[in-house]
């Protein structure tokens, strides 16, 4: 078998190794996003005196982070060694930075939720909610840096847009859960956040696609492409439903579920696109060859 098409590399073999992460990691992008953005919504609502919304958002934040930990640990090849994550603090490793952020965020988020639900330790609860809200934006966006900081073209070359996509996705999902679990009269801020988050999520995804140019293939075709289309449909429908009928209880539950589904699907689309991009030798070789040719 002779090699004639050099963009296909060595007998069409991938140049890069595909990630070894399991779908638990894509789920974590979602649950971590919910936790981060919910802590912000909960804190802001509490400060504005909206107790009911604050409580449901703080509980969502604690639930999100409580699920996140196990999702991250089961993905490890050696789960029993998960504490090695805190062996060093490395600014060059987004995963190390994220581990430390989560270590600070998780207890704060849980204390805030516990206090909001039980009414005990109100002052500590407010302080914890504030601390979690300060860390929330980092929890919601560092995962975008984590995937971008790889050699995979569909991830690395999207490093400008991915954090905005993840921020919008986190806002939409946190708002979706809050509007589904909060009485309609108190859920106004959740509805507004849902619409803004959905707009950011859709806009960032589209801008990522156009920014990637030829490397956007995985986001347009195949499994990741189908997930992206489904995500946009869910997110857009959810946002429109909020605007059209957000003050009806049933509609706001459906809209919240759609926003969450859209957010989850966009995380899975990004996740899958990385695998497809890594498997394609031309995606790695092509841009590098033109870059070298331009020198």
């Amino acid at each position: 078998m002779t090699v004639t098409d050099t963009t296909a590399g060595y007998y069409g073999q991938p140049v890069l190794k595909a990630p070894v992460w399991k779908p638990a990691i894509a789920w974590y992008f979602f649950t971590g996003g919910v936790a981060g953005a919910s802590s912000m919504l909960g804190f802001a609502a509490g400060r504005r005196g909206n107790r009911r919304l604050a409580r449901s958002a703080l509980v969502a934040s604690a639930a999100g982070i409580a699920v996140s930990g196990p999702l991250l640990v089961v993905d490890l090849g050696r789960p029993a060694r998960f504490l090695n994550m805190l062996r060093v603090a490395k600014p060059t490793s987004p995963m190390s930075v994220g581990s430390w952020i989560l270590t600070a965020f998780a207890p704060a988020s849980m204390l805030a939720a516990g206090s909001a639900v039980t009414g005990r330790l109100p002052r500590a609860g407010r302080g914890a909610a504030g601390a979690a809200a300060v860390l929330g934006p980092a929890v919601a966006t560092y995962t975008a840096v984590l995937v971008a900081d790889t050699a995979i073209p569909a991830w690395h070359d999207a490093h400008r847009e991915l954090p905005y996509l993840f921020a919008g996705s986190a806002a939409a999902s946190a708002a979706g859960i809050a509007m589904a679990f909060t009485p309609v009269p108190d859920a106004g801020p959740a509805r507004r956040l849902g619409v803004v988050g959905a707009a950011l999520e859709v806009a960032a995804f589209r801008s990522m696609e156009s920014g990637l140019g030829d490397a956007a293939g995985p986001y347009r075709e195949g499994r990741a492409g189908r997930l992206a289309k489904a995500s946009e449909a869910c997110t857009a429908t959810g946002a429109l439903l909020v605007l059209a009928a957000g003050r009806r209880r049933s509609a706001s539950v459906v809209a919240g579920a759609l926003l969450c589904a859209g957010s989850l699907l966009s995380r899975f689309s990004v996740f899958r696109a990385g695998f497809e991009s890594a498997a394609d030798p031309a995606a790695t070789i092509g841009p590098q060859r033109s870059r070298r040719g331009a020198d």
Partner: protein
Amino acid sequence: MGFFTDTSICIGCKACEVACKEWNDVPDDGLDFLGWSYDNTGSLGADTWRHVAFIERPRGGSAPPSSPPVNGQGAGSSPAADALDTGDAGVRWLMSSDVCKHCTHAACLDVCPTGALFRTEFDTVVVQQDICNGCGYCVPACPFGVIDKREPDGRVWKCTLCYDRLKADMAPACAQACPTQSIQFGPLDELRERAAGRVGVLRDAGVSEAHLYGAGEDDGVGGFGAFFLLLDEPEVYGLPPDPVVTTRDLPRMWRAAAGAALALVGAVAVACARPR
């Protein structure tokens, strides 16, 4: 210390693969016939730390023949197609023993969250197996697709440049076993000098395509600890033509994340401008 792999004298014997496996106790990963010439390991991975690539290339450069000749009756007017018609003489057979590049700016080491990957006193990059927790971050970070997770072990593995042998003043197993000195081990500046001389000799002998891959220090990974003399484009050997350490762009990524975090703060502030 590092490797200079001179592929122009590689005979594809795979002694390097075998010696590496034996010395480092690397598990068997199947003796499969892949259908790609004589290659049976496919690529570098958790259980293949030296990989001998076999490439069959039509003579006459990288341009594919305009029309494939069929039993010598095709319209083979291009030189490449004519060459193919003559059978073996029209095919160049390239062999190359690939290995971890032990980058000066190593992405695997940069992104490792546990500190399991570290730089040794020999300027090589090694995984500490008693620390690795199998997070897998190094796997997609490597621009060469070298490091991978070993299942069911759960940890990541790659070439250590025979760290244990180096400590005992011995050459790495692959270099020791190589019968043609295609794999040379030594201080990098010495190897670079020798490699430049070798390219000169080859070019004088009419092998104009001979060139070094990874011998400089001004590339995207700050120089390779294991570089190569190639007789074709790097991508033909499955090597990236212009690898860049992903963490070079990390400051830009954190800045984008800071912008997105601010956007999120703004969105929540706007949403909560009214309490209900």
